[in-house]
């Protein structure tokens, strides 16, 4: 009984810190409809700032907490809102997720620069104090955590329900323009929300690191907040009381799992996957999203190139690789081949995110399935790579099927949950066929020719990229492509035409995963050795960020994205510049959702774009769904990227 009580107390304490983190997430989402992927990274950086003040600068603990929670964190939140969030506030879920991903990656990078890896110890609050109930000792730190969670919840609830500012913050979600007509200041409301959300993240971060004294870690604290995603989802991202219950249940599940589950291999991994499984279950319990009738979201895409232009671009790319092989050093040829493998991975996002508008944060998991298949079979035959693509496609179907009912953000979160489950239960788990450290791989043999040299491999990867890219373009130009675009722009209009969205959706997930798996198989052959760390969920965040910034709606964008991802991995010294480019591009997404290639395509007269045959056709300023929308566009002429009213 005492053991049970001990774990219950522990669960409540863990749940309390999740609740604080989750309530910050709920606050920013409920008031600005932007899901802050960087919430955990904010918690992590603020915990580091706390460490800096309290342990490096020698300020008192309490003063440091006050400075961080009521000074640094809200200032950071408000500035973030002012300079980043406000610019993308009206953009789609794809853009807002990518922008907050950019913030996350930037914060992790900044923390690593400012506080290089080393000893960052944090002690408990009220160390040595506590109370004993029965046989169980509850530390002062535990009591503080629970007390603060209850206080934060009560204050937030009261603020949102009973103060005029709180009500105005919720009103801003319904209709910003109308709030302004009431005399409210929508921007100020969202700045306050982000400041408060950031404070709560800071408080959660400090409590989490002091509860389990140990190393402050860049990634683990950033990802620990996936737990708070799960809790927030229990309250459907809007209800604070249900969020608190969700956090408590999750905390208890975690505690009981560490107390009662077997410690044999397999179960340990299962324990790590509990928050992700909880998140997935919460998402699957969501009610069916209603089709929104009467609203048509026009998203400008890039014009699909003519096949003649595709042929020219293919020739240009192959020629560029041949020239690269001739002039680059061996190490750089290897990097070029790596970039091309990543480009295939990036290409997998084009039909999924670019055409269909589904945001996936599990692409590295599909990439990993392809690589794992090649590594496990120890084969150099192309059939191993194709088998990897097939298995990845099956995994894609596995993701698509349960989440058929989910839209937008919820779908993206379900891919996060899937990727985390893959990480802990498959890739890191040798008993379930995972890597178990790292595995040796073979170079590919094709019709008796072995692609042993990096130069040959680079040409192989470029050729595969071109073939898959051409297939993607052909599909986009055909009936299937039109269905995908139409489904993205107006599911309601498609439903009235009698289209079944399910099949198209499962197919695009399977196809996208297959492309990623194919890339993974090639990657495994190139690297000679692969391990679970190569395919961690965390990698999918910069991937999505880079590909969307480079241009997720075009094959050229995927090529640029792959190369940028390679550069980020291979040239640490250039990271700062790359992040700068990405940050600018990410914020620019509000204006140009086709990313850097979108900007390039817009420069019609750009000589390079014209000569390489990568476009120069200009951005097609059309709204594809108009052709399927059952109604006429009324009122103002439709501006690109703006919502258009449709007579229902």
């Amino acid at each position: 009984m005492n053991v049970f009580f001990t774990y219950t107390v522990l669960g409540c304490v863990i749940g309390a810190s999740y609740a604080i983190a989750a309530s910050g997430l709920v606050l920013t989402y409920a008031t600005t409809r932007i899901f802050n992927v960087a919430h955990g990274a904010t918690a992590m950086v603020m915990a580091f700032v706390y460490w800096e003040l309290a342990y490096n600068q020698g300020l008192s603990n309490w003063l440091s907490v006050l400075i961080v929670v009521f000074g640094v964190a809200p200032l950071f939140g408000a500035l973030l809102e002012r300079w980043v969030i406000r610019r993308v506030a009206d953009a789609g879920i794809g853009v807002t997720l990518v922008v907050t991903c950019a913030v996350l990656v930037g914060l992790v990078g900044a923390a690593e620069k400012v506080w290089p890896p080393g000893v960052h110890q944090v002690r408990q609050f009220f160390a040595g104090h506590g109370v004993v109930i029965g046989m169980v000792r509850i530390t002062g730190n535990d009591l503080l955590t629970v007390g603060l969670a209850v206080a934060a919840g009560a204050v937030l609830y009261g603020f949102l329900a009973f103060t005029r500012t709180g009500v105005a913050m919720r009103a801003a979600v319904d209709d910003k323009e109308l709030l302004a007509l009431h005399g409210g200041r929508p921007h100020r409301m969202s700045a306050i929300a982000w400041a408060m959300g950031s404070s709560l993240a800071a408080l959660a971060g400090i409590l989490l690191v002091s509860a389990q004294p140990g190393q402050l870690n860049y990634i683990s604290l950033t990802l620990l907040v996936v737990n708070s995603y799960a809790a927030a989802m229990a309250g459907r991202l809007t209800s604070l009381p249900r969020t608190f219950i969700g956090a408590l249940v999750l905390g208890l599940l975690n505690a009981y799992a560490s107390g009662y589950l077997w410690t044999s291999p397999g179960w340990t991994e299962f324990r790590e996957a509990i928050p992700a499984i909880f998140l997935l279950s919460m998402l699957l319990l969501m009610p069916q999203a209603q089709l929104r009738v009467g609203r048509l979201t026009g998203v400008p895409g890039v014009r699909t190139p003519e096949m003649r232009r595709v042929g020219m671009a293919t020739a240009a790319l192959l020629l560029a690789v041949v020239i690269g092989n001739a002039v680059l050093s061996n190490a750089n040829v290897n990097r070029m081949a790596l970039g091309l493998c990543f480009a295939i991975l990036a290409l997998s996002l084009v039909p999924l995110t670019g055409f269909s508008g589904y945001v996936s944060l599990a692409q590295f998991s599909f990439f990993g399935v392809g690589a794992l298949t090649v590594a496990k079979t120890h084969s150099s035959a192309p059939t191993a790579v194709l088998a990897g693509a097939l298995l990845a496609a099956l995994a894609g179907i596995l993701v698509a099927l349960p989440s058929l009912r989910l839209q937008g953000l919820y779908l993206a979160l379900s891919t996060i949950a899937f990727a985390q489950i893959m990480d802990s239960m498959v890739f890191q788990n040798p008993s379930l066929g995972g890597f178990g450290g790292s595995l040796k791989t073979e170079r590919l043999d094709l019709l008796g020719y072995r692609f042993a040299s990096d130069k040959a491999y680079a040409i192989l990867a470029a050729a595969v990229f071109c073939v898959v890219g051409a297939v993607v373009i052909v599909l986009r130009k055909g009936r299937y492509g039109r269905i995908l675009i139409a489904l993205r722009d107006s599911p309601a209009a498609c439903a009235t035409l009698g289209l079944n969205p399910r099949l198209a959706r499962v197919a695009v997930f399977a196809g996208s995963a297959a492309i990623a798996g194919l890339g993974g198989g090639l990657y495994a052959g190139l690297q000679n050795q692969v391990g679970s760390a190569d395919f961690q969920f965390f990698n999918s965040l910069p991937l999505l960020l880079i590909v969307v910034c480079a241009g997720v709606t075009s094959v050229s964008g995927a090529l640029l994205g792959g190369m940028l991802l390679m550069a980020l991995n291979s040239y640490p010294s250039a990271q700062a510049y790359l992040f700068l480019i990405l940050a600018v591009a990410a914020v620019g997404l509000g204006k140009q959702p086709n990313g850097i290639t979108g900007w390039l395509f817009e420069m019609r007269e750009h000589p390079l774009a014209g000569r390489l045959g990568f476009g120069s056709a200009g951005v097609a300023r059309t709204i594809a769904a108009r052709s399927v929308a059952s109604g006429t566009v009324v009122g103002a002429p439709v501006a690109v990227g703006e919502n258009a009213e449709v007579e229902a």
Partner: protein
Amino acid sequence: MAPILELQDVHAAYGRIEVLHGVDLAVPRGAVVALLGPNGAGKSTLLKVCSGRLRATSGHVHLGGSHVNDAAPDALARAGLCTIPEGRGIFPNLTVAENLRLSGLAGQASAAEIYETAFARFPRLAERYDQLAGSLSGGEQQMLAMARALVTDPAVLLVDELSMGLAPLIVRQLYEVLAQIAERGVTVVAVEQFADTALAVADFAAVMTQGRIVAFDEPGVVRRDLAELYLGGATV
């Protein structure tokens, strides 16, 4: 008397497409002006420019003597301009009471004063106090929107298509409230497609076609010439 709201040669556009092609309008202080015109004439766009939601590409907008071309909608609201936009100016996910409380953002009224004024005129809203505004009937939603005009006591009230999608009886009630608000000295500009309802309470009527004001006169005169004004300006 100097007009409280004045537009001089106002042009406005959505993207590259110009919708207002030089609008001149002077609204006398304390008057009720019905702004009439066929679909697509630019009436709602004109209200958008007046309320700061769309910036004029050229021309001048004056409110109470100040040049307000670049003023933000919230600043204009706090300066005494109340706008009830097309399609119910309410927040559907807030309760009736919360909607009413937000009316206080533009003025000095406390929550209690707001409830008292609003519920005295619209007892139906008192019954729906805790209900989400989105779940009210169309007429009740428009009452809630009108309640804001009632409690904020603005200098100028802009109303867009008050009658849209409502039963004639409800429309008549709402126009009675509009007339009451006007009696207090509030200047009202009401955009309306159904001319008769608006002309009944108006001191002046303006007719818009194709992005221009083609007539501004007494209601009786406008009523007489309405058919010709509509058809004369329209291209078939």
